[in-house]
Structures are given as structure tokens and as C-alpha cells.
């Protein structure tokens, strides 16, 4: 049976029974159809779901979304597209739960934009992605957004089209929101040319070391910041500013410039294999714990989080 279309339902669950009922039904029917199946949900849900699926565990790949999808910007390229590419030629069925109550207000817009952009990236692909939402613990705003980002919703076992679902790029644009201000105490490096890159790298590395970031994480943060600064140098003659500061649980780093990042999918979809550049944001997404972008004509701010 050909099912060459993309299905992206949101599943609102009120308790573990509803969660397991909705998710296991999805997995059993996908396994029966011969799909490649991935379950990427937060650890607290992963354990009971894995237990419930013990009899088909051989046919399912499991991942903890708080690790694999810690950075919501990484989920499309690093989890969903990567899984589809590894199973080219087969329909893929994925449970992806990217939003949980502990997602911070800084993280959340990148999560909601991710949910909207799935619709663009997977349009026309032979795939299904079921996104469970905790209807009890998530606040109403976040639940309302789920109706905007999913063409179909499942509530109380019933599946119905969402009346609030609209153009995914327009929906993603709703989450292109200003970032909290950079704190006054941040270390700041202004830059304009490639001659400044080494100085940016050494200053971010020094800050990361003082803040106690493990060496591997510091290396990755330096690599990500360098990519963002290179983009600024390539596309905005006026240069930009790198700011670094410590927040609870992670180091934050922001690159500001006066450019406008028009492509909302930048960093979420790999460029064609033959293209040498254009991977800076993608790399930042894969390496960092959060990449938040606020862009508008005349200014772009990209914030990175890197936890120890």
C-alpha cells in the first residue's frame, strides 16, 4: 500500500494511560506496515513507553529527546532527517516529543518554530511524525501553539483536523521573537574582518575555561561562535559583536549584526552536498544546547547556550 504523504498529528495526553494508548497504537501500526520507526521522547516518558513496546523493541529505535533534541534546532537535521536518510526508500514513522514543561521561556520559541517547520521540511515525504503534548502540565499558550503547528490533532482518542493550523512558514515567523537583553556584565568582542576571528576564538575559549566548561564543550562552543562570526563577516560589511556570559547551568553566547537572515530554514536543513559553505548555523545547532535566532530587517541576534 502506498502512503506517500506526510502525516503530522499532535497528541494531547492527560495521563500516562492516554500517552501509552496513543503512542503504542502509532508504533504497532507502523511496525506492522514495515516502516522504519523511531521513538524520541523525554526520558520520563521513554522508560514506560519502551516497556510497553517490549514485544516490538527490535523494530524500533529509541532516543531520549532531552539529549538528542536538547537543542530544538537540532531535531530536524540531527534526529528526523538523519533517521530518514538512514532509512532511505522506506516510510519513516517517528514519535517526536520536543516540548515538555521544563522547556524554558528562552528555549520555547525555538521549539514551537521547530514544530511549524517540520511541516515545510517533510511536505511530500513518505513519513509520519506524532508529537505528544502533556495537556495537564503544559500551559495553555503552549497547547494553543500545538494546534497552530499540527494539521491534525488527537484528543481523547479522536483524530480531527486543527482549525488553527496555518501556513507553517508564517507560523514559524510568529516565534521569531526578541531575545532577553544581553546582561551588562557580559564580555564583549567587536569584530569586522577575518583578522578578528582568532581574537574571538581565544576570548570565548578563555571565558569558557574560567567558567569551568569542560574542554570538549568549550571547543564546540568556540567552533559554533566562529561559524556565526564568519557568516557576519561574509554577509554584513559593518561586522558584529560577540557577547559571552554565564547563566545558571550554562554559558550563553550571542552574535549580533545588522544583517537579516531571510531563510527561516537556515541551520535546520543541510545544504546540498556539493556546497562548501552554508553550514555554520547547522553546525551550531548540532553542537550547542540551544540556538535562538531573532532576525528582522537591519538586525540579527543569534544566541547559543552550552551546558557543562
Amino acid at each position, binding site marked *: 500500500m502506498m502512503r506517500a504523504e506526510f502525516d503530522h498529528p499532535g497528541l494531547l495526553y492527560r495521563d500516562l494511560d492516554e500517552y501509552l494508548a496513543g503512542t503504542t497504537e502509532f508504533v504497532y501500526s507502523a511496525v506492522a506496515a514495515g516502516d522504519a520507526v523511531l521513538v524520541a521522547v523525554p526520558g520520563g516518558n521513554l522508560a514506560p513507553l519502551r516497556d510497553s513496546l517490549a514485544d516490538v523493541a527490535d523494530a524500533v529505535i529509541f532516543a531520549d529527546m532531552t539529549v538528542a533534541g536538547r537543542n530544538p534546532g537540532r531535531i530536524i537535521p540531527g534526529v528526523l532527517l538523519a533517521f530518514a536518510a538512514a532509512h532511505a526508500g522506506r516510510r519513516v514513522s517517528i514519535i517526536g516529543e520536543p516540548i515538555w514543561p521544563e522547556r524554558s521561556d528562552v528555549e520555547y520559541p525555538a521549539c514551537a518554530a521547530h514544530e511549524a517547520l517540520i511541516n515545510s521540511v517533510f511536505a511530500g515525504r513518505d513519513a509520519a511524525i506524532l508529537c505528544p503534548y502533556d495537556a495537564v502540565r503544559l500551559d495553555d499558550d503552549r497547547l494553543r501553539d500545538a494546534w497552530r503547528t499540527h494539521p491534525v490533532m488527537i484528543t481523547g482518542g479522536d483524530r480531527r483536523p486543527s482549525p488553527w493550523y496555518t501556513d507553517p512558514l508564517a507560523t514559524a515567523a510568529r516565534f521569531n521573537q526578541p531575545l532577553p537583553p544581553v546582561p551588562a556584565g557580559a564580555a564583549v568582542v567587536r569584530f569586522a574582518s*577575518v583578522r578578528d*576571528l582568532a581574537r574571538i576564538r581565544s576570548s570565548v575559549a578563555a571565558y569558557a575555561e574560567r567558567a569551568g566548561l569542560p574542554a*570538549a564543550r568549550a*571547543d564546540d562552543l568556540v567552533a559554533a561562535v566562529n561559524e556565526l562570526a564568519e557568516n557576519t*563577516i561574509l554577509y554584513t560589511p559593518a561586522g558584529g559583536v560577540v557577547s559571552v556570559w554565564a547563566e545558571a547551568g550554562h554559558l550563553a553566547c550571542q552574535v549580533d549584526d545588522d544583517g537579516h537572515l531571510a531563510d527561516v530554514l537556515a541551520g535546520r536543513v543541510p545544504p546540498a552536498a556539493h556546497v*562548501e559553505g552554508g*553550514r555554520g548555523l547547522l553546525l551550531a545547532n548540532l553542537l550547542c544546547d540551544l540556538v535562538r535566532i531573532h532576525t528582522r530587517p537591519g538586525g540579527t541576534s543569534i544566541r547559543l547556550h552550552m551546558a557543562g
Partner: protein
Amino acid sequence: MIDRLRLGDHACVVVDDDAIRLRYLATYVAAGLCDNHRVLYFGPGVERLSADLAALGLDTLAARERGQLRMATPEDSYLASGSFDPAVTIAGWRSETESALAAGYRGMRAIGDMSWAARPVPGAELLPWYEAQVNRVFAGGDAMAICLYDRRLFTDTALQRICWSHPATVDHETGTDAEPALRAIRTTHPPGIRLEGDADLSNRHALRAVMEHLVEDTPASVGSLTVDVSRLRFADAAAMRILMRTATTEAHRLRVVGCSPALRRLLTFNGADAVTGLTVEPAA
């Protein structure tokens, strides 16, 4: 940085002050004479330069008489055919390198004053390409060069494109004890190339030219090729992509050795794990 340069280096030297230019030249020429290099100066003011260097205490008469130091105007070097032909110029550097070695020198040390390129010379538009491709000569490890660009003669945009074609750039902000940003030197034991320093947007075109032609520039008899990255402190995603392009076409015989965990993650990001036969060895 001028006195840190050694065989294999190719630095873009941006100057906007004649006194500093002369001091750079004096340092660079003196080091070459001391290191038993043949020193070639291609630029304007050949007669005056000897006198200016002498005024700084560097007597070059003996070196000129024994053929260790040679000077020529741009019209007699870069533009000898009436226009700038990059391929001919690159071939010229190769043969100058061979003749310096044949004459018993340790290598060829060049100075190119590129002020002529600010004039409407046919072929001058090929300069960024030339500056990238000529790295293949210096990557052999028997030659080195500084290219003098006068900031007063070139636009910022033109200078930027030219700088990116050099592994290293020296300007008024460069510390005297700074090392060149990147070194890419081909090796014979084992055959391949050794990358040192930082590979980023500032030298991407230089790295690309050397890596793209690594196979072509290595003797045909050679079997496996080793890319030694143990002294590569930093590489951006595009630099690792350049390396991966060579790795993909030569996977059956390419070894990447001395790979730090950070570089390994970048190689993985660029698809190294999907290249069958590619060997990547971690740093010791």
C-alpha cells in the same frame, strides 16, 4: 611575524607606510641571507632598494654579486610578457625554486611587491586565483614568499579577497612574535601533507587550492597519503569540508592522523563516517 616566517610560508603583507615596508624588507632579506636562501625581489625601485637597505645597515652588495640576492622590476618579472599570466608566473616560481636548490641554497625566498596590480594591467583580475594556486609551490616546503600590498593602492574588498588566498596575513595589527595563521606543507615521510595552526575564513582559499591538488602535486608513485592534523589547532566547518572532499575522492588511500576530538566531531559533521575506507587516527 616577518622574522618567524620560514620555508613553506606565503604571507600577505599589507603596508601603508614606506618606512615600515623597508623595515620588513630588511628583516626578511637579512634572515634569508643568513639562512642560505636565494632571495628574489620582484618590485619597483630596484636601484634605490639596495641603497635603502644599506642605510639600515644591511649591505647586500656581496650577496648580489654572488647571485644569492637578485632583484627585478615587475616589468621584467610578473609582466615580462606584457600582461600578467598566472600560470607562467607560477611555473616561474617552480623553476626559481629548483634552480636555487641546484645552486646549493637551502631554498628560495621571494618578495613580490604587487603594487603593479593596482594599475589596469591585463590579467590583474586573476590575482586572487593566482595567490591561491601559488600556495601549491610553497607547500612543497622549499620556497617561501611575502607579497607586499600597499593599502593605499587597493580597495578594502580587493585586499580582502587577496588576503583570503594567503595562509597568513601581516598588517599593522600583527604582533611581532605572532606565528603565521596556517601552514600547509607537503611531506615525503610519510607522503602527504601537514597542516599547522588555524584554518578559517581568513585562509580558506589557500587551503582549498593546496588540498584540491594534493594528489596532483604528490609524486605518482606514492601509495597512501597522510594528512597530519596533529598541529592543526582549529579548523572551521568549511576547512574540514575541503579536507573531506579530498578524503572522499581518495578514500582508499587517505589517512588523517593526529585528529583531536574537536576535529573528529567536525569530520563526522561533514560525513566522514559514511566514507568507506577512510582512516582517521586520533591524536596520540
